[in-house]
């Protein structure tokens, strides 16, 4: 179990949060081919290391936000607003 720093409420138990999968996925335009559409819908980076992902403080303030988390150590390297763009890997 880990704690997550909600940008609004501060550090809370993992159990209060809902995981929303990889962040920064950009929906392509309507005219893209099937392959690009599938890449957007289904294909993921799934890295062993730093992962940029969305969480929601579901049993709290309800805010959606982004975090950068290490998928091996579970260390949370950065918490940032849902509207921010994906950080450079180094600065995470």
């Amino acid at each position, binding site marked *: 179990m*880990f704690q997550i720093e909600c940008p609004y409420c501060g550090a809370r138990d993992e159990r209060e949060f809902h995981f929303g999968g990889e962040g920064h996925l950009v929906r392509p335009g309507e005219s893209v081919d099937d392959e690009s559409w599938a890449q957007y819908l289904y294909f*993921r980076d799934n890295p062993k290391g730093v992962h940029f992902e969305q969480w929601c403080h579901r049993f709290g303030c309800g805010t959606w936000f982004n975090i950068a988390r290490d*998928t091996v150590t579970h260390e949370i390297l950065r918490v940032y607003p849902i509207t921010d763009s994906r950080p450079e890997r180094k600065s995470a």
Partner: protein
Amino acid sequence: MSRYSIWNIARHAASGHRRWAPAWRSPEAKKRYDVVIIGGGGHGLATAYFLASQHGVTRVAVLEKGYLGGGNSGRNTQIIRSNYFYPESAAFYDRSLKLYERLPRELNFNLMLSQRGVLTLAHSRHDMEANRRWFNSVKLNGVDAKLMSREDIARIAPSLNLDSHYPVLGGFLQPRGGIVRHDALTWALARGADSLGVDLLQQCEVTGIEVEHDRVQAVQTTRGRIATGKLALVAAGHSSILAKMAGFRLPVTSMPLQAMVTEPVKPVLDTVIMSGAVHAYASQSDRGEIVIGGGADMHHSYAQKGSVLTYRINARAILELFPWFSRLKIMRHWAGIVDITPDTTAILGKTPVEGIYINCGWGTGGYKAIPAGGETLAHTIAHDRPHPLVEGFNLERFYTGALIDEGAAAGVAH
């Protein structure tokens, strides 16, 4: 390979069982193989065994970064069944179950196959309707199944609490489903493959894949470079990493799935009990331990250890069904990294790179699939064309939309 038999046990007893030969060799890596398989779990070993036994392809190496069966194949709860909803899945998983019935003899290894039945519980009117629909589909697919009333369930599972917060109203049983000892399966396949000439290379981690002109050339490993014309990626939760080395992406996410066992008790449970609504399942091992599983951790992870949160949720869930388990101590608790696809159907077949084949995406339920997964991948590699049983499991289905959404239909647990 020296056969295992009662005569051989008697013969070796005379020398105090000190002269048994190792079950497989530990060879040096060769410079080149016809087929290289990455991943020494059940699916990788079964692929090697069937390549050699059914296709005569024996210049094969299985590369395992740790020890054989150290991944999910040695971490699962051993449940086998074929009561799937869609015809593609049912045909595949029933082939696998039939192979499980045949393999102990073929491999000369006691897999401790126990077809004790897998019982799926229904806890509400909606569950009952969904169960009946599922049951009908299973029957139409030609697989054995039996609808069970509350009374039937009370008779076969007297230790189950029928009047919990979510009362048990009925269920359905697959009598041919059950349990197979997981270590025995990997060891038997390893021994079988080795005896046909396959090189099993442990402590051999793949760190790079050489691709030229969209064709695989070789792999780089911690035991040196190994050239090959055909490469199979069979690495469960680590598939995305290998795919990236070869230059493509997968529709897979890696998450921990946990299980736990209690201290041993006298026999109390002789079926496998699963509940989708409560989201937990249990069976009792030969040693008397209660083996318990539930839902996966809900975030990406490669840590091979589950969150205490999920562990608690799973423990609480199983206590709904068996309140008396609360008196038992948990002895061990662990996690494996499972490879989840969007439609919870596996990915088995060719990839965008010529000469690279893949077998992954089994998620929380690919132990039961090992014999057929190996058999069909071996066929796909040998003929460079998908085996008919797995044509629908291809990677292109995510482009064409021909998904096999087994998760929703069968409430896929394990």
